[in-house]
């Protein structure tokens, strides 16, 4: 039976009428038309769908939309600050951390969660954290560099926030 879910989405009150089987990512993409969150697999392994729920990164393809009742959801669309790229997004751009860009929203949402827990991560800490984010294009080198640079910009810059 379709039910109404209400939650906070990128800082604003939001809601949708969904079936119990609707996945969080389906609600975001299809009901709310936020297509920045991607689906890259059906085995919960690729991380293209990573969003934040109540402040932690989760795979939105492996959570039900109804489970976000009352939750605080943040997607890639809520990361830019007043129309300006977030320092982490800028770092991905500057360090050429993407080719096709399909994995990028998930990478950035995952990276922001890492930096929140560990503001100055080492190369190997970044690589370990990205265990659940697959990139089929870049070979990861520039993604790791971008996250290092993004983390530094967040530590020192005035736009720092997650």
């Amino acid at each position: 039976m379709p039910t109404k879910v209400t939650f906070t989405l990128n800082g604003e009150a939001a809601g949708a009428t969904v079936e119990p089987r609707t996945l969080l990512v389906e609600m975001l993409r299809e009901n709310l038309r936020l297509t920045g969150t991607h689906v890259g697999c059906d085995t919960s392994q690729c991380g293209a769908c990573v969003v934040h729920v109540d402040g932690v990164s989760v795979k939105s393809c492996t959570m039900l939309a109804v489970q976000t009742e009352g939750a605080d959801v943040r997607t890639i669309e809520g990361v830019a600050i007043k129309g300006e790229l977030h320092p982490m997004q800028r770092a991905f751009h500057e360090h050429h951390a993407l080719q096709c860009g399909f994995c990028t929203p998930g990478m950035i949402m995952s990276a922001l969660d890492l930096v929140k827990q560990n503001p100055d991560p080492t190369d190997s800490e970044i690589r370990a954290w990205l265990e659940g984010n697959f990139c089929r294009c870049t070979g990861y080198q520039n993604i790791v560099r971008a996250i290092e640079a993004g983390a530094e910009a967040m530590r020192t810059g005035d736009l720092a926030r997650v």
Partner: protein
Amino acid sequence: MYNFNYHRPTTLAEAKQLLAENDEAKFIAGGMTLLPTMKMRLASPSDLIDLSQIEVLSGIRDTGNAIEIGAMTRHAEVAASDLVRAGIPVLAELAGQIGDAQVRHRGTLGGSIANSDPAADYPAAILSLDAVITTDQREIAADDFFLGMFETALAVDEVIISVTFPKCARAAYAKFPNPASRYAVVGVMLADTAVGLRVAVTGAGPCAYRETDIESALQASCTVDAISEIAVDSAELNSDMHASADYRAHLVVVMARRAVLQLASVEPRVSA
């Protein structure tokens, strides 16, 4: 995914009632196994009963001689818990090696052991640390819990409330992870417990089990040399696209040797 009814009870009694009323109902904890299975249409419950709002199922407590962990406690909470890191450091390390960060944010201890996936990490800890599983009906000893592939001693209407892990002098876990999923191709945990040295293997067989040959060799002498010549029988071990049974048998000894080396570097805990 086939459709179902979704319930979010706040008490255990309510959850049990919902289960009793609906023939094909299932509990959902972190959903990290159940939802992918439902997406593949390998499971099609009529009802999902979400355990996340039931308070008695979460939390970590130090009871002096043991650490008690609620069934709904997420892997990331166990990995980061000061109580676990101080009382049973190997358990926090093991939880921190499960899957990836996003799996650890959702996946739970109860869901992991209820599922008895042959490649799951927690079962190795349950068996080697001689943990006790508390359900709404009884206490189940570690050695009686895992019965086979995806099969446990739990009755269909039984809910895991918590798991009690006795503190031990020292323990070590060596895991050979699958590079894509991080599930254990083979994982071996050694623990120097009150009832002697216990060796548990996950990933290799249909479910986690105690490797008694390695256990008795290490009880006699806890050295790499003591087990180097042991040949594990591969007849009952798993063979799949990730590894053959023979390779898994070989890995059991290799991981056991790595765990022995790690154990030697662990400072023994002095019991209070």
